[in-house]
């Protein structure tokens, strides 16, 4: 006789949800969705063993389980804590969690250089979002920030160690997606840094995914370096028949040029399917891809600003061929702006 599927009932911020045993609180919250999902900087559902490092997903467990209703003594990392039947979790309803998260953001930003105007990740940076949503307006830290000498780790990927928050996601990517890992964390504690073993270039098929998984701008696409700001480019879903990966990507357009190719990201900023380096770095022509549709962008996302569905000149000019030819150069500029 087949065993009946056991479901645990947990409530997160008062919203009940039935989940399978062994699910983490974070994943249970993600099944509900919305504002009550704790932010996560290091946890990545597609990477085994990730999580538990950044402490941004701290939640308060106000009732341990049905059998043992005592609350947990401290705030717990929701990405590593599995649910129990009858567990009650407080996330944004608990002032403890809100203030703890504020402290975690401040901690993460202690050594972050805050060079967002230069950083290519700005606009899709998780740390930016986190700081904006949960952080303080003003930093209190007034000492010199930790800095590293820039290291060249290859011609495809740019490493900015100063921006790193040591989430270990890229290390897991190299461990789990590629057959040899060339980079890792050196040193300990405050001195930890991501680096390649004797500065070896990372040359494997899937190593480009470290760019997508990096929550900050520590690992960015060198082929896209300083090309344009994220919010001036237009994301379009596309696919191609790729022998090594699924070939499902997002192309980032500026005018008619593909500036960047990334994996498709879901609402939690995690890629659906990892893509190979050939798709990411070497296929930057529209003719290489079969376009699907513009990537849906959140209503208030900065990426959706200044984009219009179509070029729409004023009615006066639309009618008049003479005006159109006279302002041809102007139109070309307007097109370029989009």
């Amino acid at each position: 006789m087949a065993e009946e599927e056991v479901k645990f009932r947990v409530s997160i911020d008062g919203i009940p949800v039935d989940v399978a045993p062994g699910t983490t609180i974070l994943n249970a919250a993600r099944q509900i969705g919305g504002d009550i999902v704790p932010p996560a900087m290091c946890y990545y559902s597609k990477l085994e063993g990730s999580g538990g490092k950044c402490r941004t997903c701290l939640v308060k467990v106000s009732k341990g389980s049905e059998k043992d209703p005592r609350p947990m003594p401290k705030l717990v990392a929701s990405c590593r804590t599995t649910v129990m039947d009858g567990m009650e979790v407080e996330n944004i309803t608990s002032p403890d969690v809100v203030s703890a998260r504020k402290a975690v953001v401040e901690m993460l930003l202690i050594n972050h250089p805050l060079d967002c105007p230069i950083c290519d990740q700005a606009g899709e940076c998780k740390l930016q979002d986190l700081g904006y949503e949960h952080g303080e307006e003003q930093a209190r830290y007034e000492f010199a920030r930790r800095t590293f000498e820039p290291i060249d780790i290859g011609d495809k990927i740019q490493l900015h160690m100063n921006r790193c928050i040591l989430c270990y996601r890229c290390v897991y990517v190299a461990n789990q997606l590629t057959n040899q890992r060339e980079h890792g964390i050196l040193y300990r504690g405050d001195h930890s840094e991501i680096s390649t073993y004797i500065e070896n270039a990372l040359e494997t098929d899937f190593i480009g995914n470290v760019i997508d998984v990096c929550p900050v701008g520590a690992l960015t696409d060198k082929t896209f370096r300083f090309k344009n700001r994220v919010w001036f480019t237009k994301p379009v879903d596309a696919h191609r028949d790729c022998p090594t990966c699924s070939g499902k990507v997002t192309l980032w357009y500026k005018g008619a040029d593909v500036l960047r190719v990334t994996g498709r990201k879901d609402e939690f900023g995690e890629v659906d399917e990892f893509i190979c380096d050939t798709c990411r770095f070497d296929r930057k022509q529209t003719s290489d891809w079969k376009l699907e549709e513009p990537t849906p962008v959140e209503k208030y996302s900065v990426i959706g600003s200044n984009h219009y569905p179509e070029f729409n000149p004023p009615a006066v000019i639309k009618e008049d061929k003479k005006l159109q030819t006279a302002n041809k150069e102007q139109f070309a500029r307007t097109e370029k702006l989009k």
Partner: protein
Amino acid sequence: MESLSNRKKVIEQRPMNFWERIYLPAIARGLSITIKHFFKKIPTVKYPEQIRPYSKNFRGQHSLKRDELGRERCTACGLCALSCPAEAITMTSAERKKGEEELYREEKYASVYEINMLRCIFCGLCEEACPKEAIYLDGPHVTADYLRKDFIYGKDKLVEPKFDITKLAQ
């Protein structure tokens, strides 16, 4: 027929008398008004030579600022272009090469920075958005021109000339 509004006025048209017919008193009265204006204080100024005091928060032509070492402050972060409601600003960024450290402040700079002065509404949002204090609308009025293309101001017109900070302090 009775009028609807009762506001109708019947204008009396009578023939002019002798004094009115020679026009001279009316001309003299008109001239006296004209001559009186000769002795009044003139409210206008001769603009390009003489400039009226401006309000402190007057917003004129943009200028891209330099820092105290004469390096360009702009890093082409694109926040001015993003905040611009008229979408007048475009830019292309480039990476600072070795040996250009005294030209540009940060490792990224704007190789092309263009403002379309026809689109610009001088709202000052770019100034407000700038995280590097690189753009200010502190210039004079943008002058008139004949061709549309001449209103697209590049870095040659926008970047402020180099100055010596030590002399400026005196």
